[in-house]
């Protein structure tokens, strides 16, 4: 079971995400007709005649053209299908690992990253089902998944071991489950913020760097709202997760907060996300500024997930790189 999880299933998972990513890229490159058409129509409805020239250009070649419902599967749907398969392989990897270890699969960094990313995929698939108009976001989500699961397999993988006594606590289970869920939601929120930044930047006439891709994304307002929802959903869960960690730390080390590097970065992320929610609620602060704060927030989460375990020494080091 361990060999199946650690050799076969994880490889299938990473490759399947890679395939999903390629399919998403192919959708951007060749399959654009369908969704650009939809986006253009939507925008014409929204913006009306006085819309910015950009929109006219994007939809220009489609004006007057009939958009028929297509019987064939679109590239986007195939990419989403590949993501579902990757998610299934991912789930199998985590479940077999847990069965082989006879415990929750959260004993070290490798297992933790796999769990967070799995939840990320599940959150993403739920969003993609409920909100078809943001499915293009999949490229970002799957890209992050390829990187994270790839790093997990190549750099972090460790043979199965038992939990060290310090991790043997039900607060640990609650803590990790909530932190992983919040991280997964933040991950999708981050992808949406990125997409919003590209799209709104494109709408404002930016053309350098990655901005031209912005034209391919769903309506800026839709992704911005999605991003806010993800963050607003994640923030209380994150708060709860950090609290559970503090309660556990009290039982394990005698203090609920000791400014260990991991705790410090959890605090930093919490403050930055509180800043995001404030910025989002302040009319005089632009949505783009708020989205940048969300991007910084995700950077602090990554710093905590990877940076702290790799660069700093602390009580949480038993997580083991």
């Amino acid at each position, binding site marked *: 079971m361990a060999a199946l999880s650690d050799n076969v299933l994880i490889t299938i998972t990473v490759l399947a995400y890679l395939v999903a990513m390629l399919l998403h890229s192919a959708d951007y490159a060749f399959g654009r007709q369908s969704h650009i058409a939809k986006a253009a129509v939507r925008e014409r409805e929204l913006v009306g005649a006085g819309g910015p020239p950009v929109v006219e250009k994007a939809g220009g070649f489609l004006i007057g053209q009939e958009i028929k419902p297509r019987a064939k599967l679109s590239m986007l749907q195939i990419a989403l299908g590949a993501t579902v398969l990757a998610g299934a392989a991912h789930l199998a990897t985590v479940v077999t690992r847990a069965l082989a270890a006879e415990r929750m699969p959260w004993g070290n960094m490798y297992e933790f990253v796999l769990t967070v990313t799995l939840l990320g995929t599940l959150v993403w698939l739920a969003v993609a089902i409920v909100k078809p108009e943001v499915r293009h976001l999949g490229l970002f989500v799957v890209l992050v998944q390829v990187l994270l699961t790839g790093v997990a397999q190549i750099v972090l993988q460790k043979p199965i*071991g*038992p939990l*060290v*006594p*310090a991790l*043997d*606590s039900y*607060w*640990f289970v609650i803590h990790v489950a909530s932190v992983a869920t919040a991280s997964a939601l933040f991950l999708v929120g981050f992808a949406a913020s990125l997409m919003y930044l590209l799209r709104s930047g494109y709408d404002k006439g930016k053309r350098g760097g990655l901005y031209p891709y912005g034209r391919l994304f769903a309506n800026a307002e839709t992704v911005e*709202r999605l991003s*806010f929802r993800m963050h*607003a959903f994640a*923030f*209380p869960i994150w*708060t*709860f997760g950090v*609290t559970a960690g*503090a*309660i*556990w730390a*009290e*039982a*394990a*080390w*005698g*203090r*609920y*907060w*000791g*400014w*260990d*590097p991991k705790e*410090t*970065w959890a*605090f*930093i992320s919490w*403050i*930055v996300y*509180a*800043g995001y*929610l*404030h*910025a989002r*609620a*302040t009319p*005089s*602060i632009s949505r783009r500024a708020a989205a940048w704060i969300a991007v910084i927030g995700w950077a*602090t989460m990554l710093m905590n997930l990877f940076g*702290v375990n790799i660069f*700093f*020494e*602390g009580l949480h080091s038993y997580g083991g790189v």
Partner: protein
Amino acid sequence: MSGVLAFLRNSWRQLTSMRTALTLLFLLAVAAIPGSVLPQRSVSAENVAGYFRVHPDLAPVLDRLGFFEVFAAPWFAAIYLLLFTSLVGCVVPRLADHVRALLRPPPAAPARFERLPFHTVVEDPETVNFKGWRKLKRELPDGTVTVSAEKGYLKETGNLLFHSSLLVILVGVGIGAQWGWHANRLLVQGPEQAFCNSLQQFDEYGLGPMVDPGDLPPFCLELTGFEASFLDNGIPKWFEAEVNGDRKFRVNHPLRLDGASVYLLGHGYAPILKYTDAAGKSQTTVSPFLPLDGMLTSEGVAAFPDANGSDKAKQMGFEGLYLPTAGMGRSNHPEERDPALMLMAYRGDLGLDVGISESVYQLNKEKLTRLGDAKMLKKGDTWTLDDGSKLEFLGTKQWITISIRHDPGEPIVLAGVALLLVGLPMSLYGKRRRVWLRLNPDGTAEAGGLPRTDYPGFEDEFKKVTQWPRSQTTS
């Protein structure tokens, strides 16, 4: 005078603005970063000392600026105190507004519903369902009847609760810092090593400024048992210590005493050594050896100051390694599968009575002479030295390191966090909205709706409220 007042008023307005709150939040996040990058005294004093050795020029400057105690530094405190001042300045007026809003009936209907984001003609006013809304009916002189309804007060309530709970947490943390204390100690198994709670008995301690040593609760602890189990590769599976014969505690399950909690931090072995001098006088020591690695290869000393007729020049000291499972110069497993002691013998003045407390884990070799080569002893072995004196390795005892702590701020912080977790979702997911209904004297009726916060689902709710299917209201 009025200029000064205006300036103060203006500064206060600045301080309590959302932009300032945001800036201070960011400053706080940035200020915390050096606390994770640089070693911190409160986390590891050794690492700070190490940093001083590696950066002898930079370290004193950083130290003066408080970078090795970021979370106690004045500039860090300045940021969060400003933030909390801003928070109070923000919350208090909003609290007053909110109380007023709660007492005041929902506002009168606007004159023209067409200006509202949602409005509709109501065919049958009987079907309008305001169940669960706060509402007020007004009858105007011209015979028009209006109903104002509002919902979602919980959003602001939650928000205020959430922000206030941050203050509760701050107070709890402050109380913990002032009235809390902790003490650490290494405790060897057996009644000889039992101790009672007084400061001299601790290896290290820290009392909050408001704690008097006499305030510590009275209790005595004796380590009566310790059990550990390990995997074959040496990874620990489980440890448990037992004190006073019946109270067990382990990692994640501290011993809760009245007024303090005891935490199990570490454990190791203390070899029992019996030294018999040439005159036949013997002395036995139990010396805790400190682990060097996960396999409990441990290092320590045994000192016999009273050996050889208490002649200071002929005191005896031994220094070396204890290997629970003997391997090549290190232990192969943390369990005592094949215990061995590798010792070096020294004779001379141990320097124990110089006044400065010497480390009990190292010999001061200044006035000591080494006697020959290191010797490997198995349990029960006797080592006969050059003068006919003997050292016997009788066995080992277990020891544990414990931390005893008390933080009276904890329940306050926990209560604050609980309030925060209640208020936060209320605030984030609550939605304020108003709906008005007007019954005109001519028999027509109309309704208007205003979502006061970002609320995409309002349209559906508005439809539901204003065009409630008759079948459901007749019941």
